[in-house]
Structure formats: C-alpha cells, structure tokens
C-alpha cells in the first residue's frame, strides 16, 4: 500500500497513518523520526524489531507503578529523553494485535501534548508479512532535552464522574469489548478467573462494537466508508456528538478512540480508562445486560 492509497481511504486525518513502505524509507531519519514498538507480547521487541525502533512497555513505562494512573509529567519527560525524543520529533507507533497497544501508547502521548504522532498501518504483522528487515539490535540515540509537559486529562480522557454526567445527558457510549463481555455472559463461566469486575454487563445505552472490527485481515484499517457503516450505520454514533469509549482497562478503547478521532474525524471522543474494571465494581453503578 502506498501513501496515496491511504489518502484514497477517505480518512479525516490521513496524516495520522503511514505505510510500512514509508517507514522503510524513513528508518534512518533518526534525527526527526522515532519509531516506537508497543506490544501486548512484550518479548516481541527482543525477538526482533523494525531497525532503529525503540520499545515502550505500556505497563512498565506508561503506568504509575503504585497508583492506578498514567505516569506523571516528570517521568514522561524522562522517558522521552531516554528514547531520544524531543517535542518536535515525529513519533511513529507500531505493534502487535492490529496496533492495539500502539494506539494505546499514542493516546498516552497525546495526554502529554505530544501531538506529532502517527501509526504504521498494518502494524508488526504487515511489516513481517512483507519480509521487511527485523533486527535484535537496540539503538541508542543519546538523551535529549524534553521539557516537563502538562498532562491534560480533560480532552481525551474520561473519569467515572464524566461518564455519569454523560449518562445524564444521554450521551453516546461505545463498549468495544467482545460480545460475551458486553452481555455479561463471560462472568458466569465456571472457574474462569475474570479479573477485576464483580458484575458483568455494560454501561446502560452503550453500543457494542468490538475494537478489532475496525481493521482488515492484513491488519490495516478499514476505509472511512467501511468504518462509517459500522460506527454510524450499525452503532448509531455521530461525529456531531461527544462519544465515550471504554473496554476493560482502556486499552482496546484507545484503538477505537484513534479510529473515531483520526480516521473519522470526530471532534470529541474520550477514552474512559477506568472502564469495566472500575464500573463493574462500583457500588450502585447502573448496569445493563
């Protein structure tokens, strides 16, 4: 796929995606571009990665080790410095599982105002399928000066209080978990250690669109037309409304947040990272099955 083909898919912000070919051609521009691998399978980077890519571990790098929250601005600045990133650096994310964790990392970067971000369409699986180079060599770029940013938790992140207000206003919600999680059925499987939630089901009124429906079999994102058919035709969402996406801990929903924000151009989409592990444990929180 060429950059032109991404343009032809009709996205609101096609610049948010780059092709594997673009990455291959820009691998050595380490002065301006930093390629970041973010995976669910944390050993994949060690097994082999895109040359000149660095790794960001969503647990160890992006989460606070004690409080359930993301890293603070000082730690983010330090992480950027360690990875040789400046505020001007174009950061290109890619990863396994249809870029699930890549979009999660991207969303966290956006919390800190690092807006110059892209996703490699097709992710790791496409890079490998095309027989492109993989290395075990870990690059070192030297520390950079990255000013401590401000973290903005208002625009793209929702907390439970925001979800309550959103419910009162009859706002749109999209639950991106599997149908079994959405219906609450999975909590009833015997001896199945569902972590976190005491109750199963979904937030009242939420539509169910499993996150991976946004991608094709080769891992690339579906076209704008195809995405609209799913999110607007089937789920009834609209770019004119505020939308809150959630899943279990906010990782799968960051993928849907990326789709709605960048590919469909919705103005106000927030990711409720407390998600079901919070809502399903809240005393007296309304639940629908």
């Amino acid at each position, binding site marked *: 796929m060429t950059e032109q083909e991404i343009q032809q898919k009709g996205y609101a912000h096609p610049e948010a995606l780059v092709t594997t070919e673009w990455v291959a051609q820009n691998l050595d521009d380490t002065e301006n571009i930093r390629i970041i691998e973010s995976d*669910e*399978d*944390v*050993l*994949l980077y*060690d*097994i082999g990665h895109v040359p000149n890519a660095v790794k960001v*571990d969503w*647990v*160890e790098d992006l989460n606070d080790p004690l409080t359930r929250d993301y890293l603070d601005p000082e730690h983010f600045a330090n992480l950027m410095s360690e990875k040789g990133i400046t505020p001007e650096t174009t950061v290109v994310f890619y990863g396994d599982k249809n870029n699930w964790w890549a979009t999660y990392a991207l969303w966290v970067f956006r919390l800190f105002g690092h807006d110059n971000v892209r996703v490699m369409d097709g992710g790791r699986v496409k890079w490998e399928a095309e027989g492109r180079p993989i290395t075990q060599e870990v690059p070192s770029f030297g520390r950079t000066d990255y000013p401590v940013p401000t973290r903005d938790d208002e625009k793209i992140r929702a907390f439970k209080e925001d979800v309550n207000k959103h419910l009162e206003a009859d706002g749109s919600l999209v639950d991106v*978990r*599997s149908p079994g999680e959405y219906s609450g059925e999975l909590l009833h*499987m015997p*001896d*199945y*250690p*569902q*972590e976190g939630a005491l109750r199963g089901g979904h937030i009242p009124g939420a539509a169910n669109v499993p996150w991976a429906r946004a991608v094709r079999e080769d891992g690339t994102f579906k076209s704008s037309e195809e995405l609209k058919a799913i999110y607007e035709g089937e789920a009834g969402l609209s770019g004119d409304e505020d939308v809150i996406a959630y899943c*279990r801990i906010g990782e*799968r929903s960051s993928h849907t947040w990326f789709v709605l924000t960048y590919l469909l151009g919705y103005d106000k989409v927030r990711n409720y990272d407390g998600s079901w592990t919070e809502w399903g444990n809240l005393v007296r929180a309304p639940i629908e099955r």
Partner: protein
Amino acid sequence: MDRKDRIALLVEHAGNPRHEGVLESADVAMPGGGPECGGSVVVYLKGDGDGGIEDLSFTGQGDTISMGAASLIMQKVHDEGLAMDEVLDLDYGAFVESLGSDVVGSRTRNATLGLSTLKSAIRKYKRDKRPGA
C-alpha cells in the same frame, strides 16, 4: 543462562509447545486466563487415583511468556514425575525466577498462567474425587 538465552527458551517453547493438545480421557478440563489479556489456556488432567498424575496436556493461545511458560511447566511435571501435592507446593515466585525475573518483568500473571491453571485443575480433581462428591 543469560537473558537472551532465557528469552530464546521461552520463544522455542511458545513456538513448539510440549504436551499440547486435548486429552480426551481427562478427568478435568480447566480453563484459565483471558484470550484478550495475555493469554488463555485449558489444562487437561488425568489422575491415577492415588495422588499421582497419569497424564497432562494443555491447549492455549497467548503471548510468548504465557505460552512458553505453560509449555515449560507441562514439561517439568512430566519429566520430574511430580505428584499432585508436589505441584500444589510449587512456588510461583521460584517458578518466575527460573524463567528469569528480568525477562518476565511485571508479567508474572502471564508467566504463571499455566501453573496456576494446573493447580486449579488439581484442586478440582481432588474436590470431585472426595467421597460423597
């Protein structure tokens, strides 16, 4: 073994899992984990009726750590001929240590998925075999 070797061992086991497959004659088929959270397995256990393990296998899908570690624990139980109580006595921390704490990092739940599900299978076996059960 250094870190690279420990990773290579997990990768090799994840790619070529030992004792993988459904055990039709199993007394217990125990599911564990979650398919969208590191990995999921089903452990198949057949007891010998005298505290021993007659046969054992697993099926699953997941990341390199969860699948590699599940295969390694299956191999250990088979090779060392561990009895059920000996498996229940296995220490999670020591098992993670044997895999390499530097490799597993914070993914201890993934690393112990196979072992914890095996322990659950043994407990269920014991419950089911209890007189009057």
